[in-house]
C-alpha cells in the first residue's frame, strides 16, 4: 500500500491547490464560474458584491482552513512520532483546553473576535508553559510530558466548567458552546495575520526537521547514542508545534480528529518516514479542512460547526484505519 513513486508526489502537491481553488467557486451565494474566474484574475466585469464575496468572505476563510488543517495535521504527525504513540492527537498537551478556557473567559465579557482569539492563544501558550515547567521539574521524558498534559488539560477543563456555569444561559453559554464546536464563520482578513505568520514560520520548521523526527521514534537511549540531543529536540518540537496548534485553535475553535486521523491516512499512503509523512500530512490536512469547511458553509442555510463535521467523518475514518491496523497486526502474528 505504500507508494514511493512520483505520482503520489504530484497528487499530494496538487490536492490542496485544487481544493483551494474549488472552494472559492462554492458557497451559498451562487456565483457564475466566469465571474469567479474574472474576480480571481482581477478583470473587470463582475459586480462589487461578487468581488467582495470572493475576495473578502471566501478567500480569507479558505486560506484559514488550509492553514489550520495543515497545522493540526503536521503537529499531529510529529507528536505521534515524538510520543511514539499513533493514538496521539495534536491536542495531547492540554493546548486545546487552555485555548477553550481563554476563549470562554473572553466570551463572558465581549463578542469581539480579535479579543477572543488573543485570549484563546494566550491561555493555550500558558497551558504548554505549565506542561514544560512540569517537564523541567520532573524531567522531560515523554511520559512526564503526557501526564503533565493530561493534568493541565484537566485543570483548564474544570475552569471552563466554572465559566460555563456562570455564563448567561441565553446568550453567552450558547456562544461558548458554539466556539467549542469549532467554526471558521466570519473569518476576516484582519483575523489572519497572526495565523499566517505563525504558520509561515512553524510549518517550514517542521519541513526542515522532518528527517530528524524519524530519530525520535526510537528510544531515547538509542537516539542519544546516535548523537541526537533528544531533550533539546523534543522541547523545540513541542514548543513550535504548540504555537501552531494554539494559533489554529484560537481562530477556529476546538476542532478534533484532524490531528489524529490525517497523519494515519497519510502514513498508510506514503509510509512512516517523516520525510514524506510531514508534507503528506500537511497536504491532506489542508485539503480535508478546506473541503469540510466548504461543506459547513454551503450545504445548509445555517452553518454546520466544523467540529461536528470532523467528528462525523473522523470517527468512521479512524474506525476503518483501526480495523486495517488490527488486520495487519494479526497477519504479523
Amino acid at each position: 500500500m505504500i507508494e514511493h513513486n512520483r505520482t503520489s508526489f504530484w497528487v499530494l502537491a496538487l490536492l490542496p491547490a485544487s481544493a483551494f481553488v474549488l472552494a472559492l467557486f462554492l458557497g451559498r451565494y451562487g456565483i457564475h464560474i466566469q465571474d469567479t474566474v474574472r474576480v480571481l484574475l482581477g478583470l473587470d466585469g463582475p459586480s462589487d458584491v461578487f468581488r467582495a464575496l470572493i475576495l473578502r468572505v471566501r478567500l480569507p476563510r479558505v486560506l484559514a482552513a488550509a492553514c489550520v488543517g495543515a497545522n493540526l495535521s503536521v503537529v499531529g504527525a510529529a507528536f505521534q512520532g515524538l510520543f511514539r504513540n499513533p493514538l496521539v492527537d495534536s491536542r495531547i498537551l492540554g493546548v486545546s483546553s487552555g485555548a477553550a478556557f481563554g476563549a470562554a473567559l473572553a466570551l463572558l465579557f465581549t463578542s469581539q473576535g480579535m479579543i477572543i482569539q488573543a485570549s484563546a492563544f494566550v491561555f493555550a501558550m500558558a497551558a504548554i508553559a505549565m506542561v514544560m515547567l512540569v517537564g523541567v521539574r520532573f524531567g522531560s521524558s515523554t511520559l512526564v510530558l503526557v501526564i503533565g498534559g493530561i493534568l493541565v488539560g484537566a485543570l483548564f477543563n474544570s475552569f471552563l466548567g466554572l465559566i460555563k456555569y456562570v455564563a448567561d444561559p441565553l446568550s453567552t453559554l450558547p456562544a461558548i458552546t458554539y466556539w467549542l464546536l469549532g467554526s471558521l464563520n466570519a473569518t476576516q482578513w484582519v483575523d489572519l495575520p497572526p495565523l499566517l505568520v505563525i504558520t509561515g514560520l512553524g510549518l517550514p520548521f517542521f519541513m526542515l526537521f522532518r528527517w530528524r523526527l524519524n530519530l525520535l521514534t526510537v528510544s531515547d537511549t538509542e537516539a542519544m547514542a546516535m548523537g541526537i540531543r533528544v531533550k533539546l529536540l523534543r522541547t523545540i518540537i513541542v514548543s513550535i508545534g504548540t504555537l501552531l496548534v494554539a494559533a489554529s485553535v484560537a481562530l477556529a475553535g476546538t476542532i478534533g480528529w484532524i490531528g489524529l486521523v490525517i497523519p494515519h491516512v497519510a502514513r498508510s499512503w506514503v509510509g512512516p518516514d517523516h520525510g514524506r509523512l510531514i508534507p503528506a500530512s500537511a497536504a491532506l490536512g489542508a485539503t480535508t479542512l478546506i473541503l469540510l469547511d466548504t461543506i459547513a458553509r454551503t450545504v445548509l442555510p445555517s452553518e454546520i460547526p466544523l467540529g461536528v463535521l470532523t467528528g462525523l467523518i473522523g470517527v468512521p475514518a479512524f474506525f476503518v484505519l483501526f480495523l486495517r491496523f488490527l488486520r495487519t497486526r494479526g497477519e504479523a502474528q
Partner: protein
Amino acid sequence: MNLTTTELAFAYTPEREILSCVSLSLEMGQVMFILGANGTGKTTLLECMSGLRSPLRGSVTVDGRDMHQLAVRTRAQNIGLVPQMHEPVFEFTVAQAVLMGRAPHLGLFGRPSKQDHQVVGQAIESVGIHHLALRPYTKISGGERQLALIARGLAQGARCLLMDEPVAHLDPHHQHDVLSVVRQLADDGFSFAITSHLPNHALLYGDWVAFLTDREARVQGVPGTTITEQSLRTAYSMEFEIVEGSSGSRAVLPRLHRKSNPTTW
C-alpha cells in the same frame, strides 16, 4: 580502534555505586563478552562505554582520547549502541531503519544524500539481510531485527558496537545467525562488546570474556581459561560443570541435583 575503560566508577545516586572499578580494553577485531548476574550493572556499563553517561571516577577513552572530550557526533560516528529488543511502533522499512544510523553524519536539517543511501546499502549487505531491505521492520523475525540494528550501527560509521543482550529472545538458529555475523565482522576489523547471560556464547564466539561481579571486572581473560566452575559460581551463585563436546569445543551446564536413576520412576 581501541575502547578502554580505566577504573570506571558510576552511580545514579551518591549512596549507591553501580560500578566501582571497571577496567576493560576492547581491541580492534575483538569480540568481548561481558557476563554477570541480573542487576550487576551490565547495561549501565555499556551506556558508560558509549559515552551516554558520565563516570563518577575513572575514564573511558577511544584511541587514547577521553570519550567526553569528543563531540557527541564524533562519538556516535565511532561507537554504536545496540540496545535490547524493543517493539517498534511504526512500520519503517529495514532500509529506513538502518538509514537512521546516518544521523551523526547529517546536519541539523539533514536530508539523507545518495552517498548516505549507499552506505546504508553496504551495511545491509555486510550483515546479510539485503533481501529484507524493503520489508517493514515490524514484519521480520527477531534475529533479522538484531542484524538490522547491527547494520544501523555500521551505517553510523562505528568501528565498535556495544550490544546489550542481543540474542536474549532469539531461538538457537537465530542466535547463531546473529553471532556468526558478529564473528565475521570482527574478522573484518570491527570490535564488539556484548553483554550476555549465556557463557556458552562466550565460549563459542568470543575472544575475551569479563565477569562483572561486585561492581568490578576483576575476572577477565580468554574464554577457554577464564570460564571455570569457580568463576561461574562466583558470578551466578550456582554450581556449574564444564563439559567437552565431540569436536573439542566446551560448554557450560548448570549442575542440577538429580535422583541417581532418572530413567526409573
